[in-house]
């Protein structure tokens, strides 16, 4: 969808404004080292329920965080009052608190000037999406749902802002970014069927509300009156959203320090970590690349360190774990920082081929209420939701009641059977833009379902 106007870019602090604020804050500082981080932007949303807009919100905020270092003592103070007196007070407060803090034995000096690549995660279409255009996108779902005698509920969020970081060692980084997400749940009047569709992108113009409406409506219709099946181990065909719901959980464990400390799946028996070990099927490759146009990220982190392209897992083998500057120095490695997005390589199988090749299995639209159970194996629990179907003899035969699983993405990626083409999805439970992630649909064997749910 094209927004109605492209002139009203959501307010955020420009590079020049950030430079001016940073310069001012640094001039107030008497600390040995001072870092200033500046966040600003608009968060804009519209919600709908029962086929009409329920609430909406537009908010602007800008905040400054001052990190003061005195000797080896550190403190952070954040304020969103940007007048001179408030900024001076924030600097004074950070220095006062830092003096009272104990010395930090892990403190590293601030970075000097860095080279950054130009980020590609900004979209004018997202930044200029006004309430009228959002209401129009809402009608693209509520109207067909109403015509079909169904009840639609959904959420559209479009954010645009800037982030800058500077210090008194001459480092300055500035980036702008946008993010949008649009999700909908369409239910039948009698509450016996429910279908979901969602999309997330930096560029709202790449999200098609009509397509979301079609998919959610079709799923709602096909999911009515589900039957219960026995929980147990099943072959699953996971749509990309369901794959991302689980694969993104690996991200939280890709940390070298907790692995080296013996408290992670990536810890090695006897000591050390699993870099160099094969942990999943050899077809699995997981990469974070801030300049991947499908899932772009900012090109620097909170301390101004440049984000890089990082291959975490290549052909099933762990290649990298995240090292912060301190842990890298301690272990004699280079710091590894990637920007938080995730891309999983895919294959060439279509969903139809995955279904046609399945004697008995379960087709999953998405997972929900995903919570950690055992960090030793990255084991999580959660449930299927809004479109769960039985596959028998190569065909989708009927809707089934939702199921609870206790499963790890690591086990799942070891039980890989088929892979499709990667697709960017909305994989945050809350429907916000969340982490940018692109994954293929998968077919996997022996997925562990432990109970059924009556929830529709």
């Amino acid at each position, binding site marked *: 969808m094209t927004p109605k106007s492209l002139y009203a870019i959501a307010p955020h602090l420009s590079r020049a404004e950030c430079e001016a604020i940073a310069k001012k804050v640094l001039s107030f500082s008497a600390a040995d080292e001072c870092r200033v981080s500046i966040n600003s932007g608009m968060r804009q949303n519209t919600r709908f*329920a029962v086929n009409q*807009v329920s609430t*909406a919100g537009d908010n602007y*905020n800008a905040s400054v965080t001052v990190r003061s270092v005195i000797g080896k003592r550190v403190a952070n103070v954040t304020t969103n*009052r940007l007048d001179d007196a408030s900024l001076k007070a924030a600097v004074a*407060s950070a220095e006062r608190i830092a003096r009272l803090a104990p010395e930090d034995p892990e403190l590293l000096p601030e970075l000097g000037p860095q080279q950054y690549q130009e980020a590609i995660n900004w979209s004018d279409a997202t930044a200029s999406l006004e309430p009228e255009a959002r209401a129009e996108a809402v009608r693209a779902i509520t109207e067909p749902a109403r015509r079909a005698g169904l009840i639609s509920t959904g959420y559209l969020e479009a954010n645009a802002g800037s982030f800058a970081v500077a210090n008194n060692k001459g480092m300055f980084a500035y980036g702008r970014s946008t993010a949008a997400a649009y999700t909908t749940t369409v239910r039948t009047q009698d509450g016996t069927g429910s279908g979901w569709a969602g999309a997330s992108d930096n560029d709202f113009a790449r999200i098609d509300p009509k397509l979301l409406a079609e998919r959610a409506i079709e799923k709602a219709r096909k999911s009515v009156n589900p039957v219960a099946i026995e929980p147990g181990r099943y072959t699953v065909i996971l749509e990309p959203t369901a794959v991302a719901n689980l694969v993104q959980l690996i991200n939280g464990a890709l940390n070298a320090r907790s692995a080296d400390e013996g408290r992670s799946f990536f*810890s090695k028996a*006897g000591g050390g970590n699993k870099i160099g070990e094969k942990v999943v099927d050899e077809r699995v490759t997981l990469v974070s690349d801030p300049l991947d146009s499908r899932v772009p990220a900012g090109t620097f982190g909170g301390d101004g360190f440049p984000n890089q392209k990082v291959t975490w897992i290549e052909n099933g083998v762990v290649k990298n774990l995240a090292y912060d500057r301190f842990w890298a120095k301690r272990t004699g490695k280079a710091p590894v920082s990637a920007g938080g997005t995730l891309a999983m390589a895919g294959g060439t199988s279509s969903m139809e081929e995955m279904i046609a090749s399945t004697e008995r299995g379960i087709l999953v639209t998405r997972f929900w209420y995903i919570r950690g159970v055992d960090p030793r194996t990255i084991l999580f629990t959660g449930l299927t939701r809004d479109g769960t179907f039985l596959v028998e003899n190569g065909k989708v035969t009927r809707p089934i009641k939702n199921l609870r699983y206790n499963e790890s993405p690591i086990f799942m990626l070891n039980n890989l059977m088929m892979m499709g083409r990667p697709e960017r999805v909305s994989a945050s439970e809350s429907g916000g833009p969340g982490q940018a992630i692109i994954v293929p649909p998968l077919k996997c064997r022996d997925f562990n379902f*432990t109970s*059924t749910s009556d929830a529709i």
Partner: protein
Amino acid sequence: MTASRREFLQQSAAAAAAVGLASSLARPVAAQPHVFQGDPSHKELVLRAIDAAKAAGAEYADARISSARSQNIGTREKRVTNIGDNETFGFGVRVLVRGAWGFAASSNLTADEVTRVARQAVAQARANSAAMVKPVELAPIHHPPVPNGVWRSPIKVDPFTVAIEDKVAYLLEANAAALAAGARFVNSQMFFLRDEKTFANTLGTVTQQTIFRAQPGMTVTMVSPDNRDFQTRQSTDIQPKGLGYEHVLDADLKRHAARWAEEAKQKLTAKPVEVGRYDLILHPTHLWLTIHEAIAHPTELDRAYGFEANYAGTSYLAPPEDKLGKFRMGPSFMNVLADRSAPGSLSACGWDDEGVQPEDFHIVKDGMFVDYQTTREQAMWLDGWYKQQGKPTRSHGCSYAQTWADVQFQRMPNVNLLPGEKDLVWEDLIAATENGIAIIGDGSFSIDQQRYNAQFGGQLFYEVKNGKITGMLKDVAYQIRTPEFWNALDMIGGKRSYELGGAFGDGKGQPAQSNAVSHGCPPTRHKQVNVINTGRTA
């Protein structure tokens, strides 16, 4: 607050003090000085905002200014990992135009910006009203407008007046105690909030409230000698409260740290649970979360009407006309009372975020489901039910927004499982159990979007045989179907065993907002619950 409720709180608080729990619970809210310490000019600005909204065509408007200060201190072992002081300041204006809501917010608190944002909210409501099918109607408020309302959390010590070095020393001493007891790793932290909120609506209410929250906490980690296993113990004995620094002092992490380290160590060698059905004895430090997920969330009225279907979900307690007064939640001794009045609780306030003074109300009475949580908009949806019951149609005061930047909507108050009449305590429930598992502390949690199927872990699991604890278990989680679970409740602790648990991170809404809420409960026993073993080998 009802007389019986007040009496109950006084008694339970006295009992809590007697057994060494936070004695601060005993202080009545009314004893606090009603003086707003925030900026007095905020009153003028909220009034300006609602005037601007009215002038732009709003039928109803409210405005909130919030100045919130929070502080985080984090440590690991002998090191401070973070000291952060955060201040966020801004305002939000909510308006109703032709039956549609609009909301806009800004951090730039000037007279001109207040007017601009009020107009922006009105313009947005107009855009939203274009396809309105059913206009919003608001229930009347049961009390006269409050032109000068002032309320403050019942604290003894403002955490922001306590020196940083004292806080750091407190945490590092607690860590040292855990390390001395053999902990491999220990993380500890404190979080504090002070939120000064000024509110006005077009009905003539203007309130100024100062809300405090405090949470000290610790996680102790043990790693097996061969690096093949690790276990943690979180300090769930200590729950977050709507209190000041006195809560941190009462919590005394240092005193408990060695025990937590020992318990984490025991978990390394605990016996893996055998799957099967067991009688579960649930400690209040665990049960509060089960109540939160399986009673409090499904009784939110917006969920029952489908308004949260796209994220938090709907409810098995729907449609309301089929469930209110007809659905048996549990045994006749099961009573669930909602409040925003319990001193030290996280949901306590003088007025909610649309200017309604909250009241205590039963959600479950003598085992029957009788009411939902509501706001002014939602109370109208139950107009028929309230009329039939001979009750006025009015909000229970459950409107809340997490910050100035977020629109207020229905959030749960404190939802409490009331104690039974018999004077039973934790040990009595264990002594009465032949084959069971006793669970202490909250752990992993997950529940479906209609709140039927849930799975809960915990911090500590004990095998109970013939009335005695016979050893520690690990890899335990129980799976429930909510209606059966509460109807399998067969023993409940008395007033002496009632405790408040709670959390800051109760999520709902899009964009997701965090609510802070407490849940009071005694220990309970549930017959024949399905227990699984979550341990797998990588």
